[in-house]
């Protein structure tokens, strides 16, 4: 016990902030980062959500250039190829590398079963062309063009996902359908976002009887089964409306019942925030309620709202798909994934031609991607995570 009594003294000069800097373990960049950057960094750690973001960016980019991506036009009919199964893409012919190509298809009508039977004719080879000219189209209805990313070989066909009952290419129809299905959700959520902010904001800011009415309305709307109501409302859309009007009518109907969750979130946040000093200060300076709500209060939790609307989009997409599937939503010639799936309602047809169920895949993928993205965003905007 020789050491007893000795007292260790460090010679190094005392630095009062060194401990703090070392203890926090946070880099300079982190400490100086803006709120947006912090959210972005946290979001990137969420690998699945990050991947989902790219899936969605890719999908939304694709609907901008649908005409170019689709090998055929939406309504191009190939009457010789009705209910043709997906064509196989081959790379080798007789051991020889040719590059991606498809064989020619021979179709015969079996007079006994009245079914069309297709067989590959391996003597005819149609190499797939890229950046080529095919069906002419009007890009966004603005200018004429006929450029496509992929086209069938000269004189051949290219139905990668088969054809439907009128001999239209499923892949092209699926791509065009995305244009409607993916935007219905966005516009619907935009509208319900507006309604939710307005009603939730008014209820939360003023409280009292206004709050009471909005609260009861939310409770009643939330306790109703939405799908039957949506069905009734879409069935009430006039039959004579143009497809575009029906499309907007549908988005409005989806928004009419979809705002409640958001309004509830906005209300509860505003109830707490309106007691804050900065809000009282704004009131004392004579700002009007509309200005206080939109300039001083809402920006406080905008990122949360964005995360929650991301989670609201897939339910809108599903609602449109369900309604169109039942034949109550959009109707041909407008083509959405739900309209395409309506063909699959007939189970006998599905059993014979299973590829008409394919529009299911983009629906499920999009909905999953939005769910992942929303989850990731929600975690990212939460500063406590």
């Amino acid at each position, binding site marked *: 016990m020789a050491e007893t009594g000795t007292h260790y003294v460090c010679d190094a000069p005392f630095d009062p902030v060194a401990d703090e800097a070392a203890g926090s373990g946070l880099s300079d960049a982190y400490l100086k980062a803006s709120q947006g950057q912090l959210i972005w960094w946290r979001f990137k750690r969420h690998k699945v959500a990050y991947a989902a973001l790219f899936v969605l960016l890719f999908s939304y980019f694709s609907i901008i250039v649908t005409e170019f991506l689709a090998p055929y036009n939406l309504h191009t009919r190939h009457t010789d190829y009705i209910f043709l199964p997906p064509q196989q893409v081959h790379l080798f012919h007789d051991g020889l590398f040719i590059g991606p190509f498809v064989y020619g298809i021979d179709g015969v009508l079996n007079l006994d079963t009245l079914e069309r039977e297709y067989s590959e004719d391996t003597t005819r080879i149609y190499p797939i062309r890229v950046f080529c000219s095919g069906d002419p189209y009007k890009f966004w209805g603005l200018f004429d063009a006929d450029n496509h990313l992929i086209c069938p070989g000269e004189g051949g066909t290219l139905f990668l996902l088969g054809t439907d009952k009128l001999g239209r290419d499923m892949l092209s129809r699926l791509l065009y359908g995305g244009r409607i299905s993916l935007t219905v959700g966005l516009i619907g959520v935009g509208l319900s976002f507006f309604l939710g902010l307005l009603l939730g904001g008014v209820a939360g800011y003023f409280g009292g009887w206004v709050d009471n009415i909005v609260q*009861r309305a939310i*409770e*009643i709307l*939330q*306790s*109703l*089964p*939405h*799908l*039957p*109501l949506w*069905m*009734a*409302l879409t*069935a*009430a859309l*006039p039959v004579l409306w143009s497809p575009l009007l029906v499309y907007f009518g549908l988005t409005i109907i989806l928004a009419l019942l979809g705002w409640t969750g958001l309004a509830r979130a906005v209300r509860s946040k505003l109830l707490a925030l309106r007691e804050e000093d900065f809000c009282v200060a704004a009131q004392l300076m004579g700002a009007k309620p509309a200005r206080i709500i939109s300039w001083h209060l809402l920006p406080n939790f905008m990122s949360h709202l964005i995360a929650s609307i991301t989670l609201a989009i*897939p339910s809108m997409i*599903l609602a449109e*798909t*369900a309604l169109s*599937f*039942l*034949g*109550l939503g959009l109707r041909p010639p407008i083509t959405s994934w739900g309209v395409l*799936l309506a063909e*699959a*309602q007939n*189970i006998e047809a*599905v*059993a014979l031609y*299973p590829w008409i*169920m394919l529009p*299911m895949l983009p*629906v*499920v993928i999009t*909905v*999953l991607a939005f*769910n992942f993205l929303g989850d990731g965003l929600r975690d990212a905007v939460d500063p406590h995570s």
Partner: protein
Amino acid sequence: MIHYLVNRLVTMAVTLAVISVLVFTIIQLPPGDYLTTYIAELEAQGESVADDKIKFLREQYGLDKSLVEQYFVWATGLLHGDLGYSFEYEKPVAEVVGDRMFLSILLNAATIMFVYIVAFPIGVYTAVNQYSTGDYFLSFIGLLGLATPNFLLALILLYFANVWFGTSIGGLMDPEFIDQPWSFAKALSVLEHLWVPVFVIGTAGTAGMIRRLRANLLDELQKQYVVTGRAKGLSEGKLLRKYPLRMALNPFVADIGSLLPEVVSGSVIVSAVMSLPTTGPMLLSSLQSQDMFLAGSFLMFLALLTVVGMLISDILLGVLDPRIRLTGGKR
């Protein structure tokens, strides 16, 4: 408790009144009234319409009166159990419906039970074994269940049943029992067919329920009293059963508020796809033919089903939790 009950009943009555106004507005939305649609349809088929029939129907439903009066005629009719007249079937709605409403209630109740019975053990398992392989696996299945719309799931099941077994799994009973009076054999047949639609409708709800129960239970498991209990030497099973599970159970039961509308919605579309003899397909066809009286009755029935279901669950919650019954149900 009585105060709470009265409170809830009054709320329910008001809710139903508001809903009936909503439904009536929806019925009135299509241009023209039921009769003009009906007459136009008959004339399109080249038939003439008897004048006294039109007059009878007009008087019966007071279609010559103002909208407000019409609403009261319709609403009081509903209160007396008079569901209106279906033009599509040319019969009073009550006769058209038959046992569809009963089968709807059966289907929805069975689905709710399915959701609770399946979600409870899985939710507890995934929370207790967080980040285990089983947790990841079940969570992934749950996510798929959430993302796959139930009518697509129904289609897939119908397709595989057709391809693998060559049978149709649609319907809710064997064909020989359709339109037959109820018997033991019929009830048995219904039970045999019930599980497919119950599974299809319940999947999404179950997935959501598992997620929420898992999150609630995880929150509870992190609390101090769990550590205390463990330090005292309680066995893991007893520790779980005695405290955190009971705390997490409350929101689990209260969740019926979001579960029930979802299940009723799902049952409508799945019934249409699988052609079940419930109210769903008939609601769809009545909407397509704009037989609005029939559609209105069904809408009202579905809303009633949800509201009454919630009332029952709220009463149960009140029994379970004194905090709820003492504050008059303000959650």
